[in-house]
């Protein structure tokens, strides 16, 4: 019997410990259909049984833009880098929406999906990836809206729009935003399996973070005294970069962009490690 044991070939071994850092990307790839279906589920269930349907994707950023124009643009009189207010705010809003939606949703994946994850195994990373992809669809739709508004300004007003080479930066910036929110989300969701406090902190923390990021004001309009603090925010070069890429106006230094990339890499790395550790036994503690 002992001899037989040595020749036995096993396809899979489940051990008590797994490597500290393993992405299991091959496994995630095997489950790519699940990822697509989860994205589809989220998109469809968002507007099922609503009268306006997918129009809801447009309504929220439109109304937000109008309100920002009124409050920050007109009442508070904050400058917009010489850009038309509507375009300035809308670019900021849809970029920020993408980041905050990704972060908020990924930071609760263990809690939201406990009923699924407690019953079936699949590579856990599929869940956060589906959130990021799903929101990308939403971002894409809203981007079309932004393009339409730009077109409206070009045709009906004397706004001159120039496509700049910075537009090529757009995919990279979106990716950076996705990875940063993924990394932060993984860290938060892993910690919240033990400490629920953080979940409450995140919801309003994200709101506060928006004010520390040049979403409703341009970086160029910040006073010298607080400017360094805002410039250190890793989200600042991303949001400013988005405006630079789409509207051709924004402050983007190579150094701050690179440090933002560096920050993202570190966060993502830690996120993966802590997520790997948490997913092993989260169903015991949640």
């Amino acid at each position, binding site marked *: 019997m002992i001899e037989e044991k040595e020749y*036995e*070939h*096993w*396809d*899979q*071994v*489940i*051990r*008590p410990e*797994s490597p500290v850092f393993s992405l299991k990307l091959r496994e995630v790839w095997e*489950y790519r*259909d*699940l990822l*697509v*279906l*989860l994205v*589809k*589920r989220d998109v*469809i*269930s968002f507007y*099922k*049984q609503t009268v306006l349907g997918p129009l809801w994707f447009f309504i929220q950023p439109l109304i937000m833009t109008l309100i920002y124009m009124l409050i920050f643009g007109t009442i508070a009189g904050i400058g917009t880098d010489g850009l038309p207010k509507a375009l300035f705010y809308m670019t900021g809003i849809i970029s920020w929406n993408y980041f905050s939606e990704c972060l908020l949703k990924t930071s609760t994946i263990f809690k939201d999906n406990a*009923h*699924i*994850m*407690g*019953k*079936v*195994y*699949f590579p856990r990373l599929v869940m956060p990836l589906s959130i990021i992809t799903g929101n990308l669809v939403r971002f894409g739709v809203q981007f079309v809206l932004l393009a339409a508004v730009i077109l409206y300004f070009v045709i009906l007003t004397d706004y001159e729009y120039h496509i700049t080479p910075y537009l090529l930066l757009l995919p990279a910036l979106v990716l950076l935003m996705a990875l940063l929110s993924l990394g932060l989300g993984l860290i938060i969701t892993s910690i919240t399996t*033990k*400490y*629920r*406090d*953080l979940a409450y902190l995140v919801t309003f923390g994200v709101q506060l973070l928006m004010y520390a990021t040049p979403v409703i004001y341009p970086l160029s309009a910040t006073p010298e005294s607080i400017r360094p603090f805002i410039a250190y925010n890793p989200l600042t070069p991303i949001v400013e970069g988005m405006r630079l890429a789409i509207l051709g106006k924004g402050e983007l230094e190579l150094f701050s962009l690179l440090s933002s990339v560096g920050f993202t890499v570190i966060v993502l790395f830690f996120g993966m490690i802590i997520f790997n550790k948490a997913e*092993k*036994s989260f*169903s*015991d*503690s949640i």
Partner: protein
Amino acid sequence: MSKAIKVEHLSKIYQLGQIGTGTFSQDLHRWYSRMRGKEDPFLIIGEKNDRAQKGSNIVYSLKDINFEINQGQAVGIIGKNGAGKSTLLKILSRVTRQSQGNIYLKGRIASLLEVGTGFHPELSGRENIFLNGAILGMRKTEIKRKLDEIIDFSGVERYIDTPVKRYSSGMYVRLAFAVAAHLDSEILIVDEVLAVGDFEFQKKCLGKMGDVSRQEGRTVLFVSHNMGAISQLCTSMLLLEQGELALQTDDVRKAINRYLSDTSEEIKTSWENPGKQFESPYFLPLRLKVASASLQNGERNSFSNEFPVRVTIDFEVKKWDPSLEICFWLYNDDGQLVFTSTNSDTSPGEWPEIKTGENSLAMDIPARFLNEGSYILSLSSSLTMKEWLIHPEKSTVSVRFSIKGGLSDSPTWYERRDGILAPVLTWKKA
């Protein structure tokens, strides 16, 4: 024969004292008190923080489990509540991780700890088949290929493009099981999912699972409290007792008998609710009792078959609901379900009146109807077609009695007969 699963020295440990208290501030507080050498302020009440007894706050949910399972076997896993069945399944299906030991597997493993995991109420039946299939590890092309078969098996073809939130619970379960039954994995893990759906469908599921192991040569692990289903389906058994593997055998009956004799010792001829167990506004069981006019056998729970067995159910109703159904399930010592009976088996005019407050219902199991042997009678109740109040598979409201002697007045028949029942029928000239 080639092996499908090998488990070596598997243990799962829970540390009672060291689970996070839930919030960060409390953990900080705990850490600070410990630093000053004080008692942990958040220790669970009733748990002694005794330093002399080191290691007492470690609980083994599973302890040093070793077994091998051959390919194509259908293995039943049985044990009392808390014996570690679910933990074992959870570890095997990788939902949680073991503390010690390794598991070796051959082939894909699919687990069904629940039917319909990940079903989304807003999506249609068809969309949910794809989603659920993908969660269970199927590729899209695979599901597409089997779609017709799945829909056909579920029997909900007409509603396949309706959102599942409009499904009846029965349809929901049918669809969910249909997806799971068509998984193509080499190893299938199933946990009590058969406790749902109507009888017909349960039979269909059992048949399907039997096919899976017998004809397709796949390995099935099956946890259930339903000994009838286990004995029908399984070719091998694992019996767990308090986290340890008490018995692994191919003799299915032997394992079932050991399990039943172990559990039924605690069950007496009467059951009294110790507190508010199974409390609901519609039905709160107070007492369940079996009695017989015969007590000549000396043993208190052994009845002569000459007399009927009287079953008395006392219960309290706070909120009256016309659909309240009270039911008992009678099992023999093989774990086979002998029959079930409910308060609504007759025409509505004859139903016993149930009012708010305390009620007492009684019925007789006829004399000379059951066979000699011991029986377990479990109570269940439900709001018909709406919800279970006490699920029959999970009911611990049970009493036990045995029938001994008094089988007939015939000079040639006085001991146990083959067959499940032993009714005395009167033969006449036609």
